[in-house]
């Protein structure tokens, strides 16, 4: 993911921007679903427009995207459906825009979740990143607004960050199209399973909480074996999240693992 790759791989076909075909709203027969998540006003829609060739209106204000927008692109002969989610600070509260984002990451089961992060506000953005990594195993962190970070003299050690979080970190400036090559590559690698993420899991100091999560996870696993985000579901149940309670009652929770199977077969 570093600059060294960029120089050496100039002839590599995977590294060629010509491989990107912007499909706009044509999303037929896609191979993978990619979700774009992140804090408000970090440039999700800019990334979305860049990759799909669509012109979702972007604006310099938090909360511009309230519903999800979808578009498509093709990269190295695979078709991707890209879903632009509303920006949120957390996945733990209950406003409609946060629910749209959370439900999609949880129930829509994207093959890759791209978390767009404002490089000038990493610490605050990490709160959401950590919550997303509790839900999904396959994520790429797009460290956006690198131009602003540079202008402000902020330095980010993206390699260490990648080691800490266990997912690829791609520094970008989506407005200038900088780093989009590398981002596409990383999405592709994670989607195809070439890069296996080892997502960071929250460490809590509360012993009671840890035992409670372990106990409840075991219970849930008996009824819903193979659930990818067991710990998180347990945590939400402990908090009394009504939509999770409902999905346990109705059995919708069990669909989570079934949905991803056809995609994996195609891949």
């Amino acid at each position, binding site marked *: 993911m570093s600059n060294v790759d960029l120089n050496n791989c100039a002839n590599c076909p995977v590294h060629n921007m010509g491989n990107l075909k912007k499909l706009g709203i044509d999303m037929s027969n896609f191979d993978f679903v990619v979700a774009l998540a992140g804090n408000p*006003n970090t440039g999700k829609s800019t990334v979305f427009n860049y990759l799909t060739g669509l*012109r979702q*209106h972007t*604006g*310099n*204000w*938090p*909360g511009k995207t*309230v*519903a999800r927008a979808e578009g498509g692109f093709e990269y190295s002969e695979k078709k991707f459906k890209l879903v632009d989610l509303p920006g949120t*600070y957390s996945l*733990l509260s*209950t*406003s*409609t*825009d946060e629910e749209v984002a959370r439900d999609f990451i949880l129930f829509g089961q994207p093959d890759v979740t791209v978390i767009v992060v404002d490089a*000038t506000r*990493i*610490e*605050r953005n*990490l*709160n959401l*990143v*950590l*919550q997303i990594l509790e839900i999904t195993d396959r994520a790429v962190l797009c460290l956006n607004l690198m131009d*602003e970070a540079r*202008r*402000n*003299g*902020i*330095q*980010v*050690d*993206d390699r*260490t*960050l990648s080691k*800490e*979080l266990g997912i690829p970190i791609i520094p970008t400036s989506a*407005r200038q199209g900088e780093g989009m090559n590398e981002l596409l590559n990383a999405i592709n690698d994670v989607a195809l399973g070439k890069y296996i993420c080892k997502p*960071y899991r*929250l*460490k*809590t100091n*509360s012993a*009671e*909480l840890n035992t*409670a999560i372990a106990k*409840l996870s075991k*219970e*849930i696993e*008996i*009824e819903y074996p193979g659930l990818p985000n067991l710990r998180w579901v*347990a945590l939400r*149940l*402990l*908090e*009394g999240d009504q939509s999770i309670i409902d999905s*346990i*009652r109705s*059995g919708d929770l069990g669909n989570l693992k079934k949905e991803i199977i056809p995609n994996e077969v195609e891949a």
Partner: protein
Amino acid sequence: MNDNIKRESILAVANNLRWEVGDNLHDTLMESIYENATSIASKVVLYPDKKPAFSLDRTLDKILTSKYLGFPIMFLILAVVFWLTIQGANIPSGLIANLLVDTLHPALKNMANSIGFPWWLSGVLIDGAYLSMAWVISVMLPPMAIFFPIYTLLEDFGYLPRVAFNMDPLYKKVGAHGRQALTMAMGFGCNAAGVVATRVIDSPRERLIAIITNNFSLCNGRWPTQILIATIFIGGAAPAYLAGIVSAAAVVFIAVLGIVFSLLVSWGLSRTLLKGEASAFSLELPPYRPPRILQTLYTSLISRTIFVLWRAIVFAVPAGMVIWLVANINIDGVSVANHFINWSNPFAFIFGLNGIILLAYIIAIPANEIVIPTVLMLTVAKLGMMSVGAGSGVMFELDSVTDTAAILQAGGWTLLTGINLMLFSLLHNPCSTTIFTIYKETKSVKWTVISTLLPIAMGFTITFFVTQIWRLIF
């Protein structure tokens, strides 16, 4: 059934465990998230010793959101935007009208005649549908092509969240959500978009308030009406060298009045139908970003201007047909339009309006954009101004604002009519798209009806008082 038992047992286990972990689970969890985030960030981020670039942002914010300067600057920026729009739109408007109406319309008419169209067919298609479309383009396109790019540049730069920041304390005071300031700002573009934007408000009570009051943000369908009427009647009453500034100030006044109404109505709702306290939220002020001029011009022209123009045309075409028909179908020798106008005139007089304006607002329910073209066309039809138009129900050429003014004055319009039309344009039912959006968002007939009727009731009340007081004084 077996499944159900197992599932309920999971929930029961969860309930028991919830007692064990205690009720501060959410806090414990949030704390761990923050701690984890801080510890990771401290390993990977290196901040500079000094923060010179931030200081520019801070200085700007100190000025733009200052207690004393914040609002005056806001009004000043608004006024400059309208002044530019008013000054810039007149000439291209004339040019487009020249091409579409003066040149193309007779050509089309001749062509239709030479092919042998019956008079009513060429009337409905060319004098009705085509002319109303040509009209909408020449009235709407120039102001939009100037207004939207400037608005988008301001948005791109990051000014809108500052507006919201300035407005936030006011909304809080009236018992509404601070984010309503943001949705209100969105409403200045399009009320339907503003209503959708209220999804960022998590409390249903405050969201309803924001939805109901969004209509008080003048939408882009109504800006041209405000600008045109302000130019003719308010600017016309001022000395020539002040005309531009005075008309811009009048439009700002109406826009600010809209904000005042949205605050008043929010206050009223949060004390009656939608009682409750304002909830807290955090408003993030994004960094100022140098706008990308070319890209902004492109997106605002393509996605906003063309989109809104297209919508106006789509609604103007059938409306043009309706106008032609009501002006040409006669009952007892008087056209349907005149029947309605004569019948409603005494009623409209109380509110300082006239029957033509009322009929225009009924025909223009689908889209606010076509109110002015409809008003003008009906005036001509009513007066039988053959010399200007090509007959009843024909929208005529208007090369300039002066001609429009001449028509309206011939129709008996006064400064009072102009002022009342501006007020009524601010305070009347939302367009059909917005009404439908409100229904989709609230899923409630009751709130949709309230959102639709409340502004009309207010519009009639305000114009009534303005008219009565005006007539007492003058």
